[in-house]
């Protein structure tokens, strides 16, 4: 069955369009809605959004592939993103990533077999004063130590 928004999300989509002076400007918020609903933006999701927005799938894919937060493949329930840029690197980001890799038994870019965690390294998250840090889904975790990370990961089911 082809993908489509739930009635609730569809309503949200229409309200989003109404907020913007031009329809095409709403592409990022609409892609966020689609990602939330479908988990990731695979070819079918892209085609659906393209139809909704009156654009070609190629154009929508061009937008999706430009932004790191738009995912074209499924990821784990908790997406761990460790900042690796200089200020974090100066305060132990590499060790932090190493510790998470060891704890979860996965490499950067991989997802745990149970689909619980995906580990990524990302660029500066504007949290340099509280380095090292990571973002998991929407939340920031700052001033990290191995012990703190252990507690945080255990709390995420």
């Amino acid at each position: 069955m082809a993908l489509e928004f739930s009635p609730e999300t569809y309503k949200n989509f229409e309200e989003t369009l109404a907020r913007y002076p031009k329809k095409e400007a709403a592409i990022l918020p609409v892609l966020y809605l689609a990602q939330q609903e479908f988990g990731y933006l695979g070819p079918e999701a892209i085609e659906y959004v393209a139809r909704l927005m009156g654009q070609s799938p190629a154009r929508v894919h061009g937008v999706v592939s430009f932004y790191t937060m738009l995912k074209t493949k499924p990821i784990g329930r908790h997406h761990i993103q460790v900042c690796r840029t200089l200020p974090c690197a100066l305060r132990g980001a590499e060790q932090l990533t190493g510790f998470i890799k060891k704890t979860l038994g996965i490499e950067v870019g991989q997802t745990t077999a149970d689909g619980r965690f995906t580990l990524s390294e990302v660029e500066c998250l504007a949290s340099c004063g509280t380095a090292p840090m990571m973002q998991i889904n929407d939340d920031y975790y700052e001033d990290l130590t191995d012990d703190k990370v252990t507690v945080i990961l255990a709390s995420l089911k």
Partner: protein
Amino acid sequence: MEKVLLRNIDVLDSHTLAVYRSRGGYRAWEQVVKDFKPEQLIEEIKVSGLRGRGGAGFPTGMKWSFVPKESPKPKYLVCNADESEPGTFKDRLLIEKDPHAIIEGTLIAAYAIQSNTAFIYIRGELAFGAKRLEQAVHEALETGYIGKNIMGSGYDLDVIVHKGAGAYICGEETALLSSLEGGRGWPKVKPPFPATHGLFGCPTVVNNVETLAALPWIIEHGSAAYAAMGTDKSKGTKLFSVSGHISKPGVYEVEMGYPFVKLIDEDCGGVPDGRKLKGVIPGGGSMPVLRPEEIAKVNLDYESVQAAGSLLGSGGVIVMDDTTCMVRAALNLARFFAHESCGQCSPCREGCHWMEKIFHRIEHGEGQRGDLELILDVSGNIMGNTICPFGDAAAMPAAAFIKKYRGEFEAHIEEKRCTVRME
């Protein structure tokens, strides 16, 4: 010094409308709507000497004055909250702790150019900040500070919080506009400038969060009070995000012209654990690094930092102590730029990756004679040859690391290993 930008952040619930108003919030906006003609407002900000805090330091009032008054097209005001410059976290603090100050500034700027639609473009990763801004916009809308016929003035303004989706380049104003238009975040050739051909080809002003957050204070206290602070050419106060090997990292507000060494040693407690300073980047990851002896007489204003051979940029101060491997630091930033290059201009798209590869092989014991000249050559060929400042931002730090720590780079190549232990 009286705080202009951080005046509210330590107050409990500073993000709420009630607390913001109890501290004088929105009085400036009420005054602007009641007493100011747009051209008067532009003049007031010109006189204050306020310069854009996103990095370029362009005079704010002048930027506004380039918007054509008689244009039949809609005009747009965009608040640039896409803070992504390595080592910079000042805007995030304001967004989370004082969102109403940003919104009030956005309203004032929109009024100055008579825009009826304002966007706050916030980087997508800042989910909490976006929520705070959305709540604050909602509160301001309910109170009648935003909306139709604001406070009976006949002036309408809509404010839309728009989330980016993870792309450093969207902090560059024309890339931000491309993104907001619904495309890839690709910078555009200037001229034409956004003031005449911006969002959807309409007159547009893009101002940084910190710039806008200063406006309510300036209106309330007068431009003369603001201009009384700082130096001859750099007026007012500025936020500095201090990170890296420093005892007290954080966001500091100082008057322009404040001694750099004083900020690092006194306010921030210096380099910890009895170690020595090896280098410091004064204005975010895209600015050239300075050696300790170079910052001795530098003051934190646009002119003084430039005279020392770097740039004030975003005020992202990254401190590195004597355990830091400068090859690794250069590699880290080169990797950042290779990852973030938008791919439009070939010197940047190709050059950033080559610089990363060569730094990588030097750090990992595979450097070759001539590699340093090669990087300098690549960086020289990027400089000035791209349509946006990203190319320069990638090229400048790479060249500066080599020029200022050349011995260390040569030792890596000669000994075929990393000669400095990091961390």
